[in-house]
Every structure is written in structure tokens, then in C-alpha cells.
């Protein structure tokens, strides 16, 4: 979410997800039941967003335009490497898996894993709540005003720093949801951070910066492309095919699928 907001990039997004997953893992190791452990993981994601806002994003938001993009890119990329390196050094072989019990469920004659279905349901619910927040609440409209015109937002009395802080906290919370839902399908290992970041970045750019319906549409389309490529061609080529699909989309529609043309 932070990609489209205030012209800043968070390349440590995947690491936020992995750190949240590790908190869930260690909580469960310590005997905490799965549901409270997941709650702790979500709280961790939100807190990480707040910590980012209070630390490396402070100098970022003091700058405007290109300087803001570049500084956010450099600082968060550096942070991502540090977090990745630390986790790989200290707990190289750990991964979070959330086993959802029970056999597959038939959907239109296709057997679906319960974990996949639950993950999809949580994702759709999260998106619906997010969409409702941005569309129907005054606070959501205030955030949108900052996304669309930061100076204009200031002139109607909206404090952009507060809105940017809120969005980083929400972004961290969503990163934790990404980790938890992914762990229902496949293990979230300590080295997964950059893969999550790259996929999120591709989805955002293809969907259109700042467009939530665009991000959803791009996520679904690219997810299908990724799955087909992984199943029929090979996992080793799926990222290349994904990038090629994203590249073609951007060539045809530079503002993204549902982005606003400048």
C-alpha cells in the first residue's frame, strides 16, 4: 500500500511480512495457541510499520518528489538486506507453516485445499474492509486526499504526516496478513522477504500506482499467470514469465491496468 502513497517506496515490505511470521512461529514454539500467536504476528506487523514511520521514513517524508522516492528506496533496501542477513544468520532453516486441518473441499468439481480457501477468504475480506475504509469513512478520504494531492490536502486541514503514519501501520498489518495467509498454503521461510517484495511491487505497478481495485485485479491475474507458469513450465521460470507479463502490460498501459493517466 505504501508504494502508491506519498511517492515513497518500501522495499522492506517482504521482510516485515517475514518478521511477523517469525513472531508467530516463536510464539507457537513457546506454547501460545495458533490464533493468539497469529494475533501477535499481526500486531508485530503494525508495530513494525510504526517503527519504520518513526525512524527511516522521517527523513524520507521531509523530502519531496524524486528525492523522496530515491531516499525511501535506498533506506528500505538497506534495511531489507540487514533484516534478511540477520534472519539468515540467526535462524537460517526456520519457516512458518499453518496447517489447516481437514480434507479438500470440492468447488465446482475441483478439489481445493482448506488452507488455500481460508487464505483466499481472508484476503478477500481484508480487501473489502480496506476498500470500505477508503471509500466510506472520512479518515479514508483524508488518506486518499494525501495520495492524490499532498499540498491540496494540507490546504484543507489534513495533516499528511498523520495519514502517512496511519498508512505505514496499515501496510505493516497487511504484510503480516500476507505472511499468515501464505503460511496456510506454503512455508514462509526467512529468505522469502525479497520474493514477497518483488511480487507486491509488480502487482502495484501493473495494477496502477495508488489504485486499490487495480492492485486486486493485477494480483488475481498475475497470480493465475504465476500458478500456470509454475505448474506447466517450471517454478524456476515462473518469475521470469511473471516479469515478462508485467513488462508487456506496462508497455501497453504505462499507467497500469486501472491507474490514472497523468
Amino acid at each position, binding site marked *: 500500500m505504501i508504494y502508491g502513497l506519498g511517492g515513497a517506496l518500501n522495499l522492506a515490505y517482504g521482510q516485515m511480512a517475514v518478521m511477523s511470521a517469525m513472531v508467530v512461529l516463536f510464539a507457537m514454539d513457546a506454547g501460545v495457541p495458533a490464533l493468539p500467536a497469529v494475533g501477535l504476528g499481526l500486531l508485530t506487523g503494525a508495530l513494525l510499520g510504526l517503527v519504520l514511520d518513526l525512524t527511516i521514513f522521517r527523513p524520507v517524508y521531509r523530502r519531496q518528489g524524486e528525492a523522496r522516492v530515491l531516499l525511501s528506496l535506498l533506506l528500505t533496501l538497506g534495511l531489507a538486506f540487514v533484516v534478511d542477513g540477520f534472519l539468515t544468520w540467526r535462524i537460517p532453516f526456520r519457516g512458518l507453516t499453518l496447517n489447516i486441518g481437514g480434507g479438500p473441499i470440492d468447488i465446482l468439481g475441483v478439489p481445493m485445499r482448506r488452507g488455500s480457501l481460508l487464505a483466499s477468504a481472508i484476503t478477500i475480506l481484508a480487501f473489502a474492509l480496506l476498500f470500505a475504509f477508503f471509500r466510506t469513512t*472520512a479518515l479514508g478520504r483524508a488518506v486518499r*486526499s494525501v495520495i*492524490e494531492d499532498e*499540498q*491540496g490536502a*494540507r*490546504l484543507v486541514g489534513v*495533516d499528511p504526516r498523520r495519514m502517512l503514519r496511519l498508512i505505514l501501520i496499515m501496510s505493516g498489518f497487511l504484510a503480516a496478513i500476507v505472511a499468515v495467509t501464505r503460511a496456510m498454503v506454503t512455508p514462509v521461510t526467512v529468505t522469502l522477504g525479497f520474493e514477497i517484495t518483488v511480487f507486491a511491487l509488480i502487482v502495484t505497478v501493473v495494477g496502477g500506482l495508488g489504485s486499490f481495485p487495480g492492485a486486486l485485479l493485477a494480483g488475481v491475474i498475475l497470480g493465475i499467470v504465476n500458478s500456470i507458469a509454475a505448474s506447466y513450465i517450471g517454478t524456476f521460470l515462473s518469475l521470469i514469465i511473471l516479469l515478462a507479463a508485467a513488462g508487456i502490460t506496462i508497455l501497453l498501459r504505462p499507467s497500469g491496468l486501472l491507474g490514472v493517466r497523468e
Partner: protein
Amino acid sequence: MPTLELRDVGKSYGGLPAVDGVSIGADDGEILAIVGPNGAGKSTLLKLIVGLEPATKGTIVFDGEDLTNYPPHRIRQRGIALVQQTPRAFPSMNVLENVALAALFGRANAHRDEEKALARAGEALEFVGLADRRFDHVGNLNLHQQRFLALARAVAGDPRVLLLDEVMAGLNDAELATSISIVRAIRDLRHITVIWVEHVMKAVMSLAERVVVLNFGKVLTQGLPQDVMRDPAVVEAYLGETSQSA
């Protein structure tokens, strides 16, 4: 004591002064026009007042409180609103949502009551004559209507001082007459002090109660519109050319 007072306010870019030691004040309920040639520092002065640009010297006092270099959202909430020459509506929101946002956030100690904000926004739209367009997409408004929308956004927060930056540029005679009557109503009915940067001298002469002339970032003279217009130095340096073009 003036409601808004600028004391020796200055702004330099790379050592070059855009505004150079300006000291002016606007009284409660006054309509004060600021005129001068392009590059005189008029728009920069308004940006300094609302905090969009930091002043490099001087103080800006509003109701006895020093607001110099406060962030723009806090200045807006204190009661100073700006309408810029190029209207900047939020494109994903309809007309009413645009104004409601200002009604909700553009007030001091706002209680964030959305119902009341919507009511105030509706009333502000009624005031500027856009009530029947409230659910329209802002992209469907023409420039004239977008300026009225900007005015509605400004007055919806119940400001004490309204700053207008060349809001009458490019209007035809009918649009100009409507704009003049709305600005006059803003002062008369809402008791808002208006500080108004303008090039259209016909509008200035019919609406302003006092005129400040800026040149090269400094105050050249100030006074009643008819007196300023008769000042030979002003006529020769600034108003002669503008009067002909207006």
C-alpha cells in the same frame, strides 16, 4: 489591531528576495487587494501566510498569535484558508465529498462529526451556487465551477481570513460579476476578512476597500483604491498597463 498582520516578512530564493520586508495588516472584515506586476511577490506572500513556503525573515501574527512557519494544515485549522488560481480538487471524490473533507478537517478542535461536516458542506455549496452539482464528479465541472468549488472548500471550514490568489483571471463578464458578488457575500454574510491577489483591475476597483501595491517584493504604496489608482508612480509603473489589459 489588525486580524492578520505581517511584520517585516521576507522570503529569498538562493539569496534573491521574492518578498522583501513586507509589513501590512488586514482588519477584521476588510477586503484588502494586493496588486502589482508579475513577479512582484504577491502569490509568494500568500504562500508564506498559509505556510506553503517558509519565511526567511519576519513574523506573521493572526489574532495575536505568531503563526510564522506553522505547517499549512495547522494554519488552516486556525482559520486562514487559501484559494489558489488553479483549482485543485481531489479527483476521486465527488463535489460534496471534496467540500466535506474541508469542513471536517479545516476547523480548529474539529469534533470530526461527519454528519455536521456534510451539512456544512451542503450549505457551502448552496452559498456558491453549486448545490445541484453536489454528486457530480469534479472532472465534470468547468474552470469557473471548479473555482467556486474551491471557494466552497475554503468557506466550509468557517475561516476568519480568506486568501484569494487571482481567482478571477480568465473569466467572462457574467462570470466575473458572479464571482464579485460571491466574494462580497463571503465578507458581508460570513464576516470573513478577504485578502485578495488580483490582476483584473475592474474587479479590484469594484470590490476592494484598500489596495496594497507590491513591486520587487516590497510595498510600493497602499491606500484606498481610487487614491492608489491616481498615484502617478503606481499608474506609470504598474496599473497603467494592467488597466488597459483588464
